[in-house]
């Protein structure tokens, strides 16, 4: 049972409206966190030995997303060598602030990818779009937008510039090449699954290295939601929805990723 383009547009509009109604509570929670965070802002920029791999490591983990995005037989299309976090006009962030910026950039990338998928569906480029898939994309996109807003409120409340760009290392190395080959909802779901798994892995790794407890709490409140997205995507793809007894850090992203 497919839906028409007009129904798709109406559906996503309804979902967006419903979602906006829940935002005040989220903003209140984020403000509560960031209020505490402001007083501890100096802690966020600190760096310790056990965090060096996450904060300055190489880009070897990118292959996991490429593999997930391109299917089990896909090759690693990652081509870019990660460069130090690049935020034009801003002093490079360090410590937990760098993790927050990385998280915001991954969330923005997820938002953009789901929006591109919805646009492609509306344009009829993905064939028949089941209602559940359209609903999933619209809802997940809105939640990723909330996640990005939470991280940016952390940054702005600490006097830092918000992140408006995406993780270019992942976008250029994996998402764009993979999206060019997406011709149906199954392909889009595979790409989305790869992004969700990378986000969840990045948050899990972040929990291990974050020093500020409020930042850690934000990561801990988002990581389960990303994993829920992944579970439903697996279900939609006909794959077992909870494949692992323990969440993994495979494919986590690094603060050395380029953002823009």
């Amino acid at each position, binding site marked *: 049972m497919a839906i028409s383009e007009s129904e798709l547009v109406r559906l996503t509009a309804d979902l967006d409206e419903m979602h906006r109604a829940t935002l005040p509570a989220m903003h209140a929670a984020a403000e509560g966190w960031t209020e505490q965070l402001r007083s501890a802002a100096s802690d966020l920029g600190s760096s310790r030995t056990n965090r060096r791999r996450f904060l300055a490591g190489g880009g070897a983990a990118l292959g996991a997303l490429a593999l997930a995005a391109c299917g089990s037989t896909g090759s690693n299309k990652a081509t870019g060598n990660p460069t130090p976090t690049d935020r034009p006009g801003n002093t490079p962030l360090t410590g937990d602030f760098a993790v927050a910026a990385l998280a915001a950039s991954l969330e923005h990338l997820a938002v953009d990818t789901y929006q591109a998928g919805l646009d492609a569906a509306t344009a009829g480029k993905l064939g028949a779009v089941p209602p559940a898939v359209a609903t999933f994309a619209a809802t997940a996109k809105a939640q990723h937008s909330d996640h990005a807003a939470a991280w940016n409120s952390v940054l702005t409340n600490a006097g830092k510039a918000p992140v408006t760009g995406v993780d270019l290392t992942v976008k250029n190395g994996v998402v764009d090449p993979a999206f060019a080959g997406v011709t149906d909802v199954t392909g889009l779901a595979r790409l989305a699954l790869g992004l969700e798994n990378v986000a969840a892995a990045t948050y899990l790794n972040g929990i291990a290295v974050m*020093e500020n407890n409020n930042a850690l709490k934000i990561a801990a409140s988002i990581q389960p939601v990303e994993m829920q997205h992944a579970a439903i995507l697996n279900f939609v793809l006909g794959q077992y929805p909870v494949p692992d007894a323990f969440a993994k850090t495979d494919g986590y992203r690094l603060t050395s990723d380029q953002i823009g």
Partner: protein
Amino acid sequence: MAVERSAVDDRALRDLLEESQDIQSDAMGATREPLAELVELGHERRAGGGFDPVEADQFRVERRRLMRSSLVAGGALAAYGFGGALLRLLETPAFADQALDVQMLQTSASLENLAVATYDTALALPFIGGDGANATVKAFVTTTRGQHADHAKAFNDALTKLGGKLQPGADPVLIDVVNKAKPTLTDAGKVVDLAITLETGATETYQNNVAALADPNAKMVTASIMGVEAQHVAVLLAVQALLKASRPDLINLDPGNVANLPDVAGKVGFPESFQKTDMARAAGEGATK
């Protein structure tokens, strides 16, 4: 900001514990053994060379909050005055750090043990584990039961590393919930409802604990399990929605079914942008007695 570190006053602690045995025997009956264990752990921890000197104030606040909730849940604050004095001692970092970690891990293990027992109960029901049951639901319950057993072992392994007492039992509060629900489990939907309650409680408990655990290994074990429980919730919510829509035929892993899934299946599994903690269990609820 570094957390202030102060030595535990052993004499005061002993006096206080003796006083508790003399005066508060009824109120403290449920917590005496854990307290003795805490004393022992406090000694071990200090003998081991002290503590990480870098912790944020928020971390201490979080642990204090959980410690208070744990003691209240255990009845330790029943006597006015004594409870406050005990709390101040338990909150001294040299004493409380590992002690609370042990309690949280024991509670986590108790939640996993309860989940295993509950899924075993479900599998004994003909409409879940019988020959005519939905094969996908049966496989999910079987696999999920196994994952919870893995989690229980992981938490107990983490307890072993901290020198804490293993927790082989079930959460003492939620087991009553499960026992009361058993006679009402007359169809798959009711089993799913109960499972959602348990899985959500576990997810949110671990989310709280991740922010409060001091031991890095315990923190990562908990964090790696937290999201998996959330996935169990997502699947159960989707199954619940399909049952309510009278479409149990769509509960399977056939990718061809996606076209027939109702739109609610695309959002019901992740109802919130941020995981909440309103169903989290008290940190010490499942601590060993």
